Each structure stands twice: as C-alpha cells, then as structure tokens.
C-alpha cells in the first residue's frame, strides 16, 4: 500500500526535481537519472522509461529544449536537455507551491505523528 502512495508523491514532484537539476546546466537523460539517485540517496530510483516521457512533455510545454550531441568515435549520440527561461519561471512557481504544501503538511503531521 505504501508503495502506491510513495509512487504518487514522487510522480507529483518529478517535474520540479528534473527542472532543478537542469538549472545547473544541460544534461542527458541517464545523467539526470544518476544525479537523482545520488543526490536523493537512493530515494529517487528512476527507470529510463519513466524519465523520458517527462522530458518529452516538458519539451512540448517549452520548459526545456533538447539537442543531439555529435557522434564522437565509439560514443553514441546523446540528447542533451536544457532548461528554458519559461522553465526557470515555472520552476520558481512550483518551488513556491512545494514550500507552501510541505509547510502545511508538516504543521498537520508534526502534531499527529
């Protein structure tokens, strides 16, 4: 049961986390997966098939742009994602909402947990 809720919580905040990581600079998909894993200390273990659809939507919403890297010897071309100005603005708004929600949730939960 808890897995289901955990999945839903994560799903709701993945856009924010991906945009946050991209704020640091252009990154390719697997790099984002690895950083999410490392920085969250294994809380966010994403499969490729979960991240790419999110990036696909963010790109459609013009919050990120993408660019294929040139094939370099044995290196397979990779698709690099970069946050746009609109993306940065939306990230700011989501972060604000997140802060409000966590603050509210904490106030409720601290009294009961």
């Amino acid at each position, binding site marked *: 049961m808890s897995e289901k809720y955990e999945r839903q919580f994560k799903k709701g905040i993945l856009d924010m986390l991906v945009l946050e990581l991209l704020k640091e600079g252009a990154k390719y*998909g697997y790099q984002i997966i690895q950083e999410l894993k490392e920085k969250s200390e294994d809380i966010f273990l994403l499969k490729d098939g*979960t991240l790419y*659809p999110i990036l696909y939507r963010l790109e459609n919403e013009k919050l990120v742009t993408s660019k294929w890297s040139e094939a370099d010897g044995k290196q*397979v071309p990779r698709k690099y994602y970069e946050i746009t100005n609109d993306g940065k603005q939306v990230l700011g708004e989501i972060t604000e909402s997140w802060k409000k929600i966590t603050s509210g949730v904490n106030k409720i939960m601290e009294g009961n947990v």
Partner: protein
Amino acid sequence: MTEKQYLNKIMKKIKCSENQKIEIKKQLQAEMECHLRNGKSLESTLQQMGTIEEIAESYNENISEKEKKVYTRNKILKIIAPIGVVLIIVMIALNLMLPKTLDIEKSVYFEKSKIEESAKTCIELLNQEEYTKLQEGAIDTLKPTLTKEVMDQAKSQIQDDWGKQVSYGTIYMAEIKQLNMHYAVCEITVVYENVSVTYRLTFNDTMQLAGLYVR
C-alpha cells in the same frame, strides 16, 4: 526479445504522430545503446528501461490531449481513406462501364445519313440472306451468329413467313459511349407483307456491325 522488437512494441502502444514516434524511438534506442556499450546485458538494459507497458503508459500520460486527438483523427483517417479510395475507384469503374447515351446530332464519330445507309444495307442483306457479305462488315465476335441457321431460327421466333419487304418505318438513332468506346445504335421498323419487325443495329466507330437485335 531483441532490442528492435522491444522498441517496436513500445512504439505500437504510444498514441502520438509518426514523426514524434520516430524521435521517441531514436532517443530510447540511443539510451539502450549507451547501456549496452557500457557492458550491460540486454536483460539488464531492458530492466533499467522499464517494461513495454510501463514506458508506453508513461508516454501516453505525458502526451497532451491535443496530440492525442490528432493521433485518433489520423488513425480514423487511415481506416476511412482506403475505403474512400475504393469507393471512388468503384464509382469511376461504374461510370466507365455503364453506357451513356449521347445526342447523335452532336456526335463527332457518326453521321446520321451514313448510319441510316448502313442500317438499310444490313437489312437488305438480311432479306437477301447474304450472310457472307453481312459478316464481312461485322466485328469478329458477331460473325459466328450471322449465319443462315441462326438467323432462320431468330426469324421463326417472330413468324415463320414474313413475306416481302414493303417499307421502312421510323428510324431512331443515338450514340452510346461505354468503356471509352463509341457506338451508334439505330432502331428501325420494317414493314413486311405479313409482319412488322423492329431491328436494332449497333455500329462501332469504324461503322462495323457490332450488334443485331430483332423483335
């Protein structure tokens, strides 16, 4: 399952345009290649990617409603379009096959006087039982029926003894177009001593006898 089969199965389940599918496939393929080149097995790569259903579902959740509508419309069009094309072909074929009657006065293929002359010549040859001459002026498929035996049988179905020809009655003519071929149809009533007979003679655009009907 091979890498190709895996990707194709995902693509079949994603509801977006073909161009977008190509881009999605390219990206998933590139990512799989990376895993494989870094020494991961195919099994482990597929595990890292996720199941076909998971990936397709995840993409479909992230595809906008507008895009989904375009996908559905295109899918319907893909089903309807061939039916439409078949219907158009059938209509064109029917249009070509069904004979169309044209005004003989405006014909560029036939002259009324020549048709009348040819029709009367044919009737005279029939009266004189000159079947060889009649065959000479007929198309190949009609020749076997222009024999004494066949014609006597046809004549006897109307009346055994017609008597001699007395006069010609009214003549009707029309041009018929069928399968891009032009024909002149001439209906002429002939009064014999004992019976009135209506001939319907058809000529092709080289004025060969192409049809003969007697009643």
